[in-house]
């Protein structure tokens, strides 16, 4: 009886909280535009978390960043053609991204050109070409900043269908060839010994990264894309020792950063892309900090840091 009375007495306080919760979390989603953006952000978080795992374990952060910039000419071309229709940007970016990825794959095939050198040459040129194309349009600065930093609130139903469709396709390909991607990432010599089509899988992976970048274009834009590919996966690598769990954690963190960043963006009136990226960075710093403190604590207690590191990671 006393419990019931207390529950009733607390009712006022409790419902105020519920209302605040509603205003914070549910109200934004009542606008179809915002709900769509949210869905897009979650899909992007998951897909880039999964693909980003390969980017991190293969040390391809520079490639990811450069490829994101290299899609600019395609986007700019589509932008000049399509009068305000955003799904054209997707296709333009997709073509430019896949072509750049295959181009770099072809250039670095025989190691005659160092990979990072080739990336630097090709992608800076592509980015310059894109800026040159956009600079011929009238309101150049505003348009460029939308493409560079993302404009998530412009997600149309057609955009969302493309994002969902291509995002799902990327996840399916990763699921089908997970084993092969893992082998070519871990031990190229084994992959060749087993007579796997190494080049084919390498190019397929580059294409998957390109598609992921284009899918994420509207959410975080070109300039911050690399953070979505690298940061959740880097955080995941701190807490697990196996590729598949790392991928799961990375996808979860990507989605969580997207959702939380989206709300922060909405309520604090911050651009969505930076809000998502900063949230993901906060996850990383928090995880890294906790591990540092734990290993320091263990050091004081005379336990070797390697033991603690092993203990704090899950199997």
């Amino acid at each position: 009886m006393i419990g019931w009375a207390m529950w009733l007495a607390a009712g006022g306080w409790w419902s105020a909280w519920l209302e605040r919760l509603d205003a914070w979390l549910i109200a934004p989603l009542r606008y179809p535009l915002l709900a769509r953006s949210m869905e897009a952000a979650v899909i992007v978080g998951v897909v880039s978390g999964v693909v980003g795992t390969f980017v991190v374990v293969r040390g391809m952060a520079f490639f990811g960043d450069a490829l994101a910039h290299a899609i600019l000419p395609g986007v700019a071309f589509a932008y000049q053609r399509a009068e305000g229709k955003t799904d054209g940007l997707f296709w333009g970016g997709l073509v430019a991204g896949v072509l750049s990825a295959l181009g770099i794959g072809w250039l670095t095939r025989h190691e005659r050109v160092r990979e990072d050198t080739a990336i630097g040459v090709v992608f800076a040129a592509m980015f310059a070409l894109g800026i040159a194309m956009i600079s011929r349009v009238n309101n150049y600065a505003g348009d460029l900043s939308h493409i560079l930093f993302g404009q998530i609130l412009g997600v149309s139903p057609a955009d969302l269908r493309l994002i969902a469709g291509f995002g799902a396709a990327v996840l399916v390909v990763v699921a089908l060839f997970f084993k092969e991607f893992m082998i070519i990432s871990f031990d190229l010599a084994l992959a060749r010994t087993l007579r796997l089509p190494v080049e084919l899988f390498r190019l397929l992976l580059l294409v998957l990264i390109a598609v992921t970048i284009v899918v994420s274009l509207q959410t975080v834009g070109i300039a911050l894309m690399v953070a979505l590919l690298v940061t959740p996966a880097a955080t995941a690598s701190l807490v697990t020792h196996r590729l598949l769990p790392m991928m799961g954690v990375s996808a979860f963190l990507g989605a969580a950063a997207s959702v939380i960043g989206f709300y922060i963006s909405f309520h604090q009136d911050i651009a969505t892309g930076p809000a998502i990226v900063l949230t993901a960075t906060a996850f990383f710093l928090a995880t890294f900090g906790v591990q540092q403190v734990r290993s320091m604590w263990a050091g004081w207690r005379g336990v070797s840091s390697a033991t603690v590191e092993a203990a704090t990671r899950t199997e």
Partner: protein
Amino acid sequence: MTGNGLWARFRRAENPPSVQCEQRGVVLAVRGLAAGYNGQRAIEGFTFDVHAGERIGIVGPNGAGKSTLFKALVGLLPHQGTISILGASCRESHAMVAYVPQHEEIDLNFPATVWDVVMMGRARQIGYILPPRKRDRLAVRAALERVGMWALRKRPIGQLSGGQRRRVFVARALAQQASVLLLDEPFSGVDTTAEGDIFQVLDVLREEGVAVLLATHNLAQAATHYDKLMLISGGRMIAFGAPEQIYTPENLARTFGERIALWREGEQYVVVADRPCHAETHTP
């Protein structure tokens, strides 16, 4: 449980049958093999046959082309000539060459456990798209138990010592169930106990009809532990045959220069060279 039940399969995997191998067919036929790096030939003129169950020591000084030969055989280098691989051993083995390099070119921070690494060797048997099946898990377990790494199967690959990592890579090659196994200097950085373990594994492989090619520069050990030896120098095959036939002063001189001598004193082979570090004895 029936004879083909899971339990029976499990037991077979745990205790591989010690069937004496009748079949002594050729599992690897090499004709006129030449290979190199960046268009420059590092080895040429290799013609030899390897039979099922043979253990062949590849002996030669540093830079003789041992590693190049292995990389060419396994398809890591563009080559001329023909390499025919046949699955002619007794147990279920695949027409495939498994290879344990001298230095694994891997990222030690890669998120993979010992188990994951050995399972990678099963990729061909698992096939595309499909996940590992029971028989793959049994093969991985058997391979890990053989090299004594089963207890450490959950350990991340980056937290192993050099010798432990070497054994994991041997286990991965075993899990491939290839008809030919290439081991490039498997004893460097491995203590004497682990060396004995590896030889025990090699004895089992011999019974199963798996041919093993093993690069080594331990001349005295090579004389006693192998069925055949191949002397290599300057990218060419100097001699190939049973140790007592090819360990002639002329062959050794052509392989190592004039400065080496090897003779048998009772049960021991004694190697003496100009440089004292080359002097070693070995009891068979």
